[in-house]
């Protein structure tokens, strides 16, 4: 009893589901929903810490749902990358929930803010931890449907407009993903990613497989907001509540990027050359055009949307190079980007609230009126642009080094150019919003401890990670190693590990338990 370590993978997904269910069952009682929301996300964080610690000390953990052994059953599995991202994701989720308590009003919470947020977090954790590609699609849909609910909270005209574009394009993207999964299943007869990894490697490198790989790139690229399919993001992300924008920017596009990493590192490490060749150009175009968009944008929240797009390009650039150092940079940037995107949208929401405007030219003189906001925005913005000693600097160093090692001048140029453009854009926004003298000099009433605390927390985190990067570098480097040689992951998921480990023990007795249940039942 209770000895099965595989359960550690289940809790980070199950706790928010149960929390969402409880919060929905408490429909109408705001106070209960807020309590369940924060408690549920706190419990998810604890579960993610437990999972990450176990994975760090003992290696990959996997569990087959219902005891149906992978590849036939659906398995959840956590390697360093999955567990680490779940940890960062649930940390950001908790902070955003606290920010939500501080900034949403009664009507938003009545309309189900907390149940939807918990369901979204369940979907994100599920996508990070599943090792079944169809299950990945299902988690995508879980995040998608809860994000639909979140994006229209409040129901202003521009929100409905943004939601229409977001909903239609994301639905088309997930349908394309389903097409790709269906074709891959037709080719290999399996859906488990560890099994796919072995089966796809033995397939002939023909046009069918190339098509499937390209379909994965297109559909996941659309979810991740890659060039040329990123236009839905700046059309929609600035419309919902700042809290909702923060969690979307932190996690939803990242789930797409994570799926790209998983699919191309595990399933198509050798095949899919066309998709790989396209990827580097797509990535560079995304990072440069995103930064240019941020530079040209007049609306502070749309400015942040474009910087999110630019960051996606940087991560996919590392994936396209595919060396150990490139993966290290990508994973580090992933962690950095999750926090920085949330922080920027929280800051943008506070700026809009403080200056009572969202257009940059209508905002002025906020430095005198809100000094805390100014400093926090500057730290977060500089970290985004990759200025040392902040967290955004290190991943770009690794990525540029990886690009130079691989002889990919275009990636190096893209990263440096987009970093420079982002710096100019952040400087422009900062000097116009904060430094430019404004007519009104009265101090702005405090934004509330929860809003300030969440932004300040992210600013401190990015500073601390920048100054003491070793733990994140170590985690990223181990993830990179596992991505390049996924044998341990494959063996654990398929239950082929050495005797004595939890999953091996399960491989022996679980199917018989399930079968004996069946036998009893069919009497």
């Amino acid at each position: 009893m209770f000895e099965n370590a595989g359960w550690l993978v289940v809790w980070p997904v199950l706790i928010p589901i149960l929390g969402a269910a409880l919060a929905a069952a408490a429909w109408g009682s705001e106070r209960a929903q807020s309590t369940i929301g924060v408690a549920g996300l706190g419990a998810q964080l604890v579960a993610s810490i437990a999972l990450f610690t176990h994975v760090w000390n003992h290696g990959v953990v996997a569990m087959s749902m219902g005891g149906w052994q992978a590849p036939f059953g659906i398995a959840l599995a956590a390697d360093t990358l999955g567990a680490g991202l779940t940890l960062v994701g649930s940390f950001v989720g908790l902070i955003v929930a606290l920010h939500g308590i501080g900034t949403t009003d009664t009507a938003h919470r009545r309309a189900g803010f907390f149940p939807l947020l918990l369901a979204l977090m369940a979907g994100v954790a599920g996508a990070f931890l599943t090792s079944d590609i169809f299950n990945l699609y299902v988690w995508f849909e879980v995040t998608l449907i809860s994000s639909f609910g979140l994006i229209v909270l409040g129901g202003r005209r521009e929100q409905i407009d943004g939601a229409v574009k977001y909903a239609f394009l994301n639905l088309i993207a997930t349908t394309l993903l389903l097409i790709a999964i269906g074709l891959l299943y037709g080719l290999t007869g399996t859906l488990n990613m560890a099994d796919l990894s072995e089966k796809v490697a033995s397939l002939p490198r023909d046009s069918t497989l190339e098509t499937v790989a390209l379909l994965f790139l297109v559909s996941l690229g659309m979810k991740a907001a890659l060039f040329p399919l990123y236009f839905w993001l700046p059309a929609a992300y600035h419309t919902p509540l700042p809290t909702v924008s923060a969690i979307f920017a932190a996690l939803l596009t990242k789930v797409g990027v994570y799926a790209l990493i998983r699919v191309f590192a595990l399933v198509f490490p050798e095949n899919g050359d066309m998709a790989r060749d396209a990827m580097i150009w797509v990535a560079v175009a995304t990072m440069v055009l995103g930064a240019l968009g941020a530079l040209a944008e007049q609306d502070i929240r749309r400015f942040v949307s474009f910087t999110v797009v630019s960051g996606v390009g940087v991560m996919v650039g590392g994936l396209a190079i595919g060396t150990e150092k490139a993966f290290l940079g990508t994973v580090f940037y992933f962690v950095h980007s999750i926090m920085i995107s949330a922080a920027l949208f929280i800051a943008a929401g506070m700026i809009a609230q403080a200056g009572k405007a969202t257009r940059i030219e209508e905002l002025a003189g906020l430095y005198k009126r809100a000094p805390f906001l100014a400093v926090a925005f500057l730290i977060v913005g500089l970290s985004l642009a990759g200025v040392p000693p902040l967290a955004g600097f290190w991943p770009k160093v690794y990525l540029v080094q990886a690009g130079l090692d691989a002889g990919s001048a275009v990636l190096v140029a893209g990263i440096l150019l987009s970093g420079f453009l982002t710096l100019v854009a952040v400087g422009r926004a900062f000097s116009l919003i904060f430094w430019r003298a404004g007519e009104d000099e009265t101090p702005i009433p405090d934004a509330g401890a929860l809003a300030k605390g969440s932004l300040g927390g992210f600013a401190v985190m990015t500073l601390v990670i920048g100054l003491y990067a070793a733990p994140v570098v170590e985690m990223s480097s181990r993830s990179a190693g596992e991505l390049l040689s996924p044998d341990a992951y494959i063996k654990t998921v398929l239950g082929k590990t050495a005797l004595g480990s939890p999953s091996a023990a399960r491989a022996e007795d679980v199917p018989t338990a399930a079968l004996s249940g069946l036998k009893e039942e069919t009497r």
Partner: protein
Amino acid sequence: MNSLILRTATPFLVGLTVLFSIFVLLRGHNVPGGGFIGGLVGASAFAIYTINEGVAATRRAMIAHPVAIAGFGLFIAGLSGVASLVFGDAFMTGQWWFPAFAPDLKYLSTVVLFDIGVYLVVVGAIVAIIMGLEETE
């Protein structure tokens, strides 16, 4: 909607459909049926009721808010998967109980509990959607 035929038939239809949906739910494990299909049948009963009597009457008839019903169902379904933790099995492994007094009873299992949860989720979610659509008319 104002139709004499519908108004007369509604009480019988609703009662019979709900009863039928529970029948479909319970027979579901080894023969065609189950929580999802049963839930759809049950939701269609409430749909007929809503079309005839209006949203307010349905809300009264359901007692709890449909979203709360769906949440409760999801909670039951999630918990039914956790039951296997106590027996050292993997998540969602079905656990059966064959009591000594009725060894042929096949319904005392976490699988049926899961199906009941699914039933409530489907009924709650679909009635919530139907109410949303009816209210905007």
